[in-house]
Each structure stands twice: as structure tokens, then as C-alpha cells.
């Protein structure tokens, strides 16, 4: 559905009328209650915006097990030695001071009939609207020989924090001339350029500290995000270091042995020193427990991110199945604002504006060599649909690439301020 301003004004008025009724149900138990599960780019943004914009008219509870949130975006720059782990960490103190009730616990169940969320600590939290933004979990058995019990030997490092630090330590401990292997994930997965930015940043580190080391990438995909830009950069900065084995060359036929530290690609066994396994992904488990997933992810309505399964349960970010947007922190943040506006409107009768979405993903190939890809999106009846987009060009000047990198730093400061206050 394409909304022009006239249609939007009309539907806004209609919504305001219809919303006189929901105001009444809130009266039964005081203020309307929103529970948000997951304090990342989607959940933190949604919680903060609803609390901020409703000016206390809505009770907002954020359930997030971690006391410090380490962003997955920019974690590759930490692997490359360009950022520190402290650069990536954010606390929830400002958000709590801004009126969000921050509960550090795991959500372990959702009762959609009783409209409650159960916490690992035993508490049951009631909601009028539930927003799930749990990020990703890994599909069992996706990479032969690997499961979560092997994540210390072969880290995924695809959720920010201790896994990222582990992978960095393993790279630093590689013997001179050693081998770093990556098992890349199949589509769809979080941060499409992420594995390839990681390869670039690992190469950046190795070039300075271990210049005879090698990088092997086993990839189940025949092509990948920003491929031309990455491969141009790899040739320019890390010539001869990186061997990318796509699906056409058996990259999808892969198994690992975490005990022996071997990777078998299309029948060929290689002993490696570090192995970064990024398995196939699915929605964070709480979405599945809530019964709003269909297959690996949770189908949602593009207009407000409500699930197809339940109009009072919303899913944001990587866990959602929404259409054309890539799974990224930027996307989750963008979806959260549309969702927050709709949820607040439904609970308080405030104006609901048309959904607009956007995304930009920056990647760093080498120091000051940044590239980006982005697009705008709109809500249609079927999905979030792409409107317009752009991508950095190969052969750009060093000045353009440096400006792109500096822009990505500005974006990081911007989005984290937008998420956490």
C-alpha cells in the first residue's frame, strides 16, 4: 500500500477515532504496558522511543540479560585492531533514567492468551503489547561437526561480546604463517557484508603482525554482498593472502572437526589454527517459544512490524521476516521507530504516521578504505519493499573512501546514541 499524504491524513483520522476504544481497556489496569524483549538495535530503540514519546503515558519494560551490550556492528574493527572492546560496549543506565524499566533477566516463555512473559528468574510480566527483538540464534546441525558446545574451539563471534574477544585472542595467538579459516553462512543471515568485512579486518591485522599467514573462506553462496568492492580491496591491500572458495568450487560442502582443528572443504582436509564458524541463522529462540515464527523467522506486517500470528506481538530486526531489508542493526533501528510509533498510537491514540524504512551498511576494507551500500523501503501489503538504493563504486579515490569511513564512525556514534540515549 502506497500512502500519500492525503490518504495518510484520512487513515490517521480514522485510526484516532478507532483508538478511543483501546484507551478504555488500558483503564482496567492503569497505564498501558509494553514489554520489549532484547536490548539491541531493535529493542533498545523501540523501548526508548515509546518511553520518550509517550512522556510517561505508557509503562515500558525492557528485558535484556546483559548488563553491558556489545554491538556486533563495528566488532570486525575490533578484530582488526582499529577499535577497542570498550568502544563497542554500552550500558542501559541512560535508558533507565529516561523512564524505561530495565530488567536484566532472560525471557524464557510467552503466554499469548494470558499476555504474560515468563522470566528465567521466575517472574511473570504482563503486557498489552509485546515487542520481541531477540536477534539471531544458530540452526542446529547447520555445519557438520559444529554445535554450540564447540564455540570455544571454533567461535562464531557473530553475537558481540565474549565471542568476539575470544576470536581476537585466537587470531593474535596464531603461529607465524598459520591459517585462519572461516565457514561463511548461507542466506539469509545477520549483516550480509559482515563476514567479508571480517575477512578484510583479519587480513589487516595479519598483514601487520603475521604477514605470511593465510585466510581460507568456505562459502555456501556463489556470490556475496559488495563482492566486487571487497575483492578489489583484497587484491589491492592483501594480495595473495585470501582464498575465497564459493559454492561453485565446493565451498558449501564443508565439515569441521573442532577437536583436531581441521576443516574439510569438498573432501580436502586442511589443518587450521583458527576456525571461525558462522552457521545458518534463525530467529532468537524466544520468538519460536512465543509461537510467532514460521520456519526460521517470524513473518510480520510491513505497516507496523506486528506478527502475522498475533496483532499484539511485534518482531523487529534480525528475527523478523519482513521482505527486502537486509538483517542489520540499521534496519532493526529503522523498523523499531515505525513499530514504536504504531504501538504508541494503538495504546494512547497518538497520531500514527506512514511507515518509512531505510538502511545503510558501511564496511571497512583497510585503514580509511570504507565502502557502503544502502536503500530506502516502504510498506506494501505483502512486505517491506525496496524503493531506491545505491552502492559505492569500485575505483573510488582514497579521499572518497576515507570520507566514507569517517561517515561510518559518525553513524556508529549516532545509532548508539539513538539506541541507548
Amino acid at each position, binding site marked *: 500500500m502506497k500512502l500519500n*499524504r492525503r490518504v495518510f491524513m484520512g487513515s490517521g483520522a480514522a485510526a484516532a477515532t478507532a483508538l478511543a476504544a483501546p484507551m478504555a481497556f488500558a483503564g482496567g489496569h492503569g497505564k498501558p504496558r509494553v514489554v520489549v524483549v532484547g536490548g539491541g538495535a531493535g529493542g533498545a530503540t523501540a523501548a526508548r522511543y515509546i518511553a520518550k514519546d509517550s512522556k510517561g503515558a505508557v509503562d515500558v519494560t525492557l528485558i535484556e540479560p546483559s548488563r553491558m551490550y556489545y554491538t556486533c556492528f563495528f566488532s570486525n574493527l575490533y578484530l582488526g585492531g582499529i577499535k577497542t572492546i570498550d568502544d563497542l560496549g554500552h550500558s542501559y543506565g541512560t535508558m533507565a533514567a529516561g523512564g524505561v524499566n530495565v530488567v536484566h533477566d532472560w525471557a524464557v516463555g510467552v503466554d499469548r492468551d494470558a499476555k504474560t512473559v515468563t522470566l528465567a528468574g521466575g517472574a511473570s510480566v504482563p503486557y498489552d503489547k509485546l515487542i520481541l527483538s531477540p536477534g539471531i540464534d544458530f540452526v542446529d546441525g547447520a555445519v557438520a561437526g559444529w554445535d554450540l558446545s564447540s564455540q570455544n574451539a571454533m567461535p562464531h563471534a557473530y553475537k558481540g561480546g565474549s565471542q568476539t574477544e575470544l576470536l581476537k585472542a585466537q587470531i593474535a595467538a596464531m603461529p607465524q604463517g598459520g591459517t585462519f579459516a572461516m565457514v561463511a553462512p548461507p542466506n539469509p543471515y545477520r549483516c550480509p557484508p559482515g563476514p567479508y568485512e571480517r575477512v578484510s579486518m583479519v587480513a589487516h591485522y595479519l598483514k601487520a603482525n603475521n604477514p605470511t599467514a593465510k585466510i581460507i573462506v568456505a562459502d555456501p553462496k556463489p556470490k556475496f554482498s559488495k563482492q566486487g568492492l571487497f575483492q578489489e580491496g583484497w587484491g589491492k591491500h592483501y594480495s595473495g593472502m585470501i582464498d575465497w572458495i564459493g559454492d561453485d568450487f565446493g565451498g558449501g560442502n564443508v565439515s569441521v572437526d573442532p577437536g583436531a582443528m581441521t576443516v574439510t572443504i569438498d573432501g580436502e582436509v586442511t589443518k587450521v589454527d583458527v576456525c571461525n564458524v558462522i552457521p545458518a541463522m534463525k530467529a532468537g529462540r524466544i520468538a519460536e517459544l512465543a509461537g510467532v515464527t514460521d520456519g526460521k523467522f517470524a513473518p510480520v506486517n510491513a505497516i507496523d512490524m506486528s506478527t502475522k500470528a498475533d496483532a499484539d506481538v511485534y518482531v523487529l530486526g534480525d528475527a523478523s521476516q519482513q521482505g527486502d531489508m537486509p538483517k542489520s542493526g540499521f534496519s532493526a533501528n529503522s523498523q523499531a*521507530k515505525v513499530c514504536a510509533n504504531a504501538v504508541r498510537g494503538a495504546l494512547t491514540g497518538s497520531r500514527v504516521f506512514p511507515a*518509512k524504512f531505510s538502511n545503510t551498511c558501511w564496511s571497512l576494507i583497510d585503514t580509511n578504505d570504507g565502502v557502503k551500500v544502502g536503500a*530506502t523501503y516502504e510498506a506494501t501489503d505483502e512486505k517491506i519493499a525496496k524503493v531506491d538504493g545505491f552502492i559505492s563504486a569500485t575505483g573510488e579515490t582514497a579521499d572518497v573512501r576515507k570520507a566514507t569511513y569517517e561517515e561510518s564512525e559518525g*553513524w556508529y*556514534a549516532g545509532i548508539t546514541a*539513538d539506541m541507548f540515549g
Partner: protein
Amino acid sequence: MIALLACFLFSVQVSIREDGFLHLNRGTFFVLAAFFLTGMAKASGMGDPALGAAVFKKCQSCHQVGDQAKNRVGPQLNDILGRTAGGLEGAKYSKSMIQAGQDGLVWSEDTLDSFLESPKSLVAKTRMSFRGLKDPEDRANLIAYLRSFSKGPIGASNMQETGQGIDIKLDPSVLAMVGDAEYGEYLSSECLTCHQSSGSNDGIPGITAWPTEDFVIAMHAYKQKIRSHPVMQMMAGRLSDEEIAALAAYFSDLE
């Protein structure tokens, strides 16, 4: 200017007399001229105001100078030489620019030269989102141009045509639109993924406290692809005139 002319004549003569032996082409001449002028700019502050007018085009989406110049995104620049940094009444400044003025920064040819070379090196958190002029000749010429709008021994009261605005086709009714600030607040949330509400200006420019008209012109300039940033062209490209007005209304109120 006389020196420049002499240099040019000299180079032409040389190329005629000794063609094939010591050939000075146009490029060589400009390198020599640049070297010469740079030396002069440092020594006695001589730049070419006519060439500076062309350099000023980089400034004029935010700054005006000349007769009837007004404060826009940045302060108007009449009498900039001798002005205390952050000291023009009615202009919007970063806290750090005001602080710099209180600490004694006054705009002279030398301080302007440093600032224009790398704004953030001189005033770290300036709102001026400009990467700087690396070419000393460009800076000398620009300063000469600005001097012609400043009181003082050279160029006093030499008011020329007002340098202003981006050349953009915009219906006056679009500029006159009164934006819906509440809708603007919602739309602004999309901007805030990158542009900080604090007005911070590192890597990505601050966009708070802009005059409404300038905001509208800038957004339409992106929409018409006159301003050249791919992300902004894309973001502005799908905003209606009403939506741009709404955003301008919201951001102009945000301090």
C-alpha cells in the same frame, strides 16, 4: 595581480623564445604562480579576490556575504576580519566556537587561514561541517575575497553582489509551506540513526538549529541531486514537499 600578469607574460615569452628547449606550458606556469602567490599570501596577505569568489561557492550553501547578507546555517561573513570567533549576535554557534572566542580567538588572515585549512583542527567541535581547503592558494584567494567585504585599509565598503544560496529551482510556495512539526518529529527519527540530536558533528554533520528555509533548500538540493551525497540523495529523494517542510519545522526548533 600585477605580479601574476608579469609572471604570465614572462612565461609566454619564454615559451616562444626557447620553445623545445625550456618549454613552460600552462601547467608549469600555474605551479610557479601558485608557489609565488603562496609566498606572497603568507608574507603580505595578497590573494586574488576574483578567484576567491569562485572558491566561495563552496561556502555559500551555508554562508552569505555582501549587501544584505544574513545569518543562515552559518554566520554572515561581512566584516569577518577582526570579528571575535563565535561573537556575531543572532548567529548559531557551537559551544566550542563561543568558547574559542572567549579564549581570545579573533579572525585574522592567519587564524582564518588555519581554520579554513582544517576547521576541526582549530575548533574541534565546530558546527561547520567542511573538510577544509588544502590548497594554500585557494585559502589566500578566499580570504582576499572576504577581505573585500570587511572594513579596513583594503577593500573597505566594496560591497558587491550578495553571494548566497544554492542554485536550485524551487517554487516559492514550497519555501512558504508551514511544516507539521509533529509529523516532522516522527520523520526525524529516521535522520537520527546517523545525525545526532545533540548536534554533534563528527563524521556526519549536525543538522539541528538550522534556519527553516536553509533546511528546505538543502533537502530539495539533495532531492534534485544538486548536492552530491548518495545517502542523502536517496533519503531526500522520497520525501514529499510537505515532509521536507515538516522536518524543517521540527529541526529548526531543536536546540
